[in-house]
C-alpha cells in the first residue's frame, strides 16, 4: 500500500514477455536487410539441433546452460551466419538486451560487430552485468531498474561474450558478436532462412554452442535460393 505506484502496478509481470522483443528483433533485422534487398539471394535450410535437455514448458524461455563447460541455450538454438567481407555500416546499430525476471532476454543474442547493446533492468532489484570474456570485458556496476541513461556497451570484437550478473550468480547471457550483418537464429525445430544476401563466395557457419561452430562454403548467385542443411 505504501509502495510507490510504479512498483505496485507491475505490467512487466504479464506473461509472454518475449514476444514483443522477438518482434522488435525481427523488425531490426528487416531494417538491416532493407538496403540490401535489391539483388538479394537467400539460403534456407535446417540445422539438426540437439534434443532439449528438459521438456519444454509452456512459457518457453531460453536460458544458457552449460554442460562440461560448453555454453548453449536450452532449448537448443543455433545461429546461422554468413561470413565474408561486408561493408561497414554507416551508423552503429543499437540493440536492447533487458534483464527480466533475473534472466537475460534473450539468453542468446547475436549481433554484428560494432553494435551498441543496451542493458535495461526490468526487474525490481539491482543488477550488475559484467563480462570477463576476452572478446569484451566490461563491468556496468550496479544499476537500478529505472537507471537513466540505460547502461550500454559497444561490442567491437567478434567472439562469444559471457554475460554475468555480479549480484545474481546464476544469471548467464551470451552475446555472439559476429563480423557480418547476415545472421539468423534458427527456429526451435532448427529451420532457418537467410535472405537479402549479396552474391559471392562465402562461408556459411552455424554456431551451435561455445565449442561447436559448423561451416560450409557457399557460392551465392544473384537471386538464387540455396538450401543448406546442417550437418
Amino acid at each position, binding site marked *: 500500500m505504501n509502495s510507490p505506484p510504479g512498483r505496485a502496478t507491475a505490467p512487466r509481470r504479464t506473461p509472454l514477455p518475449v514476444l514483443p522483443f522477438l518482434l522488435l528483433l525481427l523488425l531490426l533485422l528487416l531494417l538491416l536487410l532493407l538496403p540490401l534487398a535489391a539483388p538479394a539471394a537467400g539460403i534456407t535450410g535446417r540445422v539438426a539441433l540437439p534434443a532439449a535437455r528438459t521438456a519444454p514448458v509452456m512459457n518457453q524461455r531460453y536460458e544458457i546452460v*552449460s*554442460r*562440461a*563447460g*560448453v*555454453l548453449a541455450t536450452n532449448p537448443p538454438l543455433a545461429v546461422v551466419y554468413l561470413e565474408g567481407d561486408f561493408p561497414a555500416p554507416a551508423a552503429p546499430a543499437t540493440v536492447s538486451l533487458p534483464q527480466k525476471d533475473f534472466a537475460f532476454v534473450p539468453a542468446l543474442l547475436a549481433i554484428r560487430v560494432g553494435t551498441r547493446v543496451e542493458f535495461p533492468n526490468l526487474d525490481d532489484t539491482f543488477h550488475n552485468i*559484467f*563480462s*570477463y*570474456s*576476452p572478446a569484451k*570485458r566490461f563491468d556496468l556496476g550496479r544499476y537500478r531498474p529505472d537507471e537513466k541513461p540505460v547502461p550500454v556497451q559497444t561490442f567491437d570484437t567478434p567472439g562469444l561474450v*559471457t554475460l*554475468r*550478473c*555480479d549480484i*545474481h*550468480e*546464476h544469471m548467464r547471457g551470451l552475446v555472439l558478436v559476429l563480423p557480418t550483418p547476415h545472421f539468423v537464429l534458427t527456429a526451435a525445430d532448427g529451420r532457418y532462412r537467410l535472405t537479402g544476401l549479396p552474391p559471392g563466395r562465402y562461408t556459411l557457419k552455424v554456431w551451435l554452442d561455445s565449442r561447436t561452430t559448423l561451416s560450409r562454403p557457399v557460392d551465392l548467385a544473384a537471386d538464387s535460393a540455396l538450401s543448406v542443411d546442417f550437418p
Partner: protein
Amino acid sequence: MSKPEPQSSRSEPPAYTPTHALSSENPKSKIQNRKSLTYRTRLLLAFMLVVSAVTAGGLVLAERNLAAAFSRELERTFAAELGAQRRVQELRQAALAERCRALVRKPRIHAALEDGALDLLYPSAVDELRDIMAPTDSAAPGGLRAEFYRFLDRHGAVIAPPASFAAGALAPVETRQLGLPLAPDSPQLGFIVRAASGAPVSEIITTPIVSGESGEVIAALVLGFKPFSTAAPDPGRSLWLGGRLYFGDHSRAGDIARALSAPPTPGVGASLALDGVPHLLFQQPLNPGSLYPPAAEVNVYPLTAFLDRQRLLRWRILGAGGLLLLGGFAFSRILVNRLSRPVEKLAVDSAAHLAGRVRAEAALESTHEELQRAARFSADASHQLKTPVTVLRAGLEELLAHDRLVPAERESLAALVHQTYRLSGVIEDLLLLSRLDAGRLRLDLVPVDLAALIAASVDDLSALPDASGLTVETDLPSTLVISAERRFAALILQNLLENARKYNRPAGRLRLAVRTTADGVELTVGNTGRAIPAAAQARIFERFHRGAVGENVPGYGLGLNLARELARLHGGDLRLVRSADDWTEFAVTFRPA
C-alpha cells in the same frame, strides 16, 4: 555361737578368723593386681590396635576415594574446558568455512576462472575479499579476518598473484606449503609454518571452486587465518605441527613434543613431569583427514594447584585421623577401665573366694574329722560307761538287799542306787546326742497318737512323789496323729514335763495344750514358777546349761538341748514362748502324720 543345725560344728573353724584371712590375702591381692594390670594393659593395647587399624583403614579408604574423586573431577574439568574450547574452535571453523563457501561462489571469481581472465582473478578477489582481509594495522584477535589468500589452479598449484598485489605477503617457502597435489573437492584445513612472519603458524582453509558450467573443481581458494585466539595467550596451549610445538611456553616445547605421539591422537594424554611438576597433557587433532600435514592442539596443564589441594586435603585427613586416633585411644582407655574394673574385681573376688574355699574346705575337713572323732569318742565313752554303771547298780542293789543293814546305811545305799540311775540316764542322753551329732541317727517315722502319748506322760508324772501338789491342766483334742518315732517323741515330751515339774513352785500349775497350726501340730507346755532371767533365755538350749537354779534342782543341762535336737530332727522345732510373771511356756512343733 551355737550352731542350730544338727550337723554343723560346735566351734568356728580357725580358718575363718579375720586375722588369718587378712594375713593370707595381702600378698595374693598384690599378685592379682599385677595380673589384672597386665590384663588391663593388654586390653588397652588390643583396643589401640583395633582403633589404629580402623583409623588406618578409614584413612586409606578415604584417601583412595578422595584420589578417585580428584582425578574424576580433574578429568571432568579438563574435559569441560577442552570441550568448550573445541566447540569455540568448531564454531569458528564452521563460520570460516561458510565464509569461504560464500566467497568461492562469487560470480567475478567464477568469471575470471571460467572465462579465461586469470589476470582479473586477484583484482576481482580483492573486492570480494575486502571485508575478510584483515586491515594491516589492526590485529583482529583470532577473529574471522584472513591474513592472506591465494588461489590454487585445478592442479593444486598456487596461482601467483600479481607482484604488486595485496593478497597478503608470503615467503616462497610459505607459499609452497599451500600447494596440493590436486585441487581438493572438499574444504581442507591445514596449518603452515610462517618462518618469516611474526605469527609462527597460520591456519589455512582451502575451499574448492566448482565451476557453475562444468561442475568440475576448477580451482581452490586458500585463506590464511591466525590459528585460534592469540589475544590472551595461554602458556599451556600450543600447536603441534610436523613434530614441533608452536605458541605456548617455548622453554618446554621439546619435552612436550617428545611426550606426544606422532601423529597426535585425540584424548587425554599421558602425565608428564616438567621441572619436577606433574602436568597433564591433552592432544586434539585439528585437521583429521586433511590433505595438509596433520596438526594438533596440545594442552598442558600443570597439576600444581590440584596437587596442593590434594596435599592439603591429605593433611586434613591425616589430622582428622590423628584426632580420631587420640579420641579412640581416650575412649578405649575409658572403656578398658570400665570393662576391666569388674573383671579385676571378679578376678580378685574369685581369687579370694578360691582361697576362702580352700581354707573352708580344709577347715570343713578338719572339723568333720574332729566331729567324727568327737562323736565316736562320745559314743565310745557312753558305751564304755554304761557297763560299769550297770555293774555298780547291780552291786549296790545287792548290798541293799542285805538284811543286816541299819536304816541309815540302807538310805545311803538307796541314794547311791538312785545316782546310778541318773548316771545311766546321762549316759543314755550323751549317747543319743553323740549319735545325733555324728548324723548317724536314723528316724523310723510312724504315725503316733500325740494325745495318747501326752496322757501317758501325764500319768507317769502324777506318779512321781514330788508332783503330788501340782495341778495339771490339759487342752487336748481326742486324737491327734503326728509323724514321729514314738520313743523320741516320748522323750521330748518327758523332758519338757520334767522341766515343768522341776522348775515349778510348790502347788503350782502345769498346762499342756495342743493345737494344729499352719506349720503342723504345736504342743505348748507351760508351768508356773520363777521365770528364766532374760539374759539366760538365749542360752537355755545349750548343752550342759542350767539356769541360775539352785543345786537342789536335779538335772545336768542336757534335756532341753536333746529335746530341741530331736524336735528338729523330726522336722519341727522347740522354742521358748515366754518366761515371765510366774509363767514359763515352751512350744514344740511336730509334723502331722
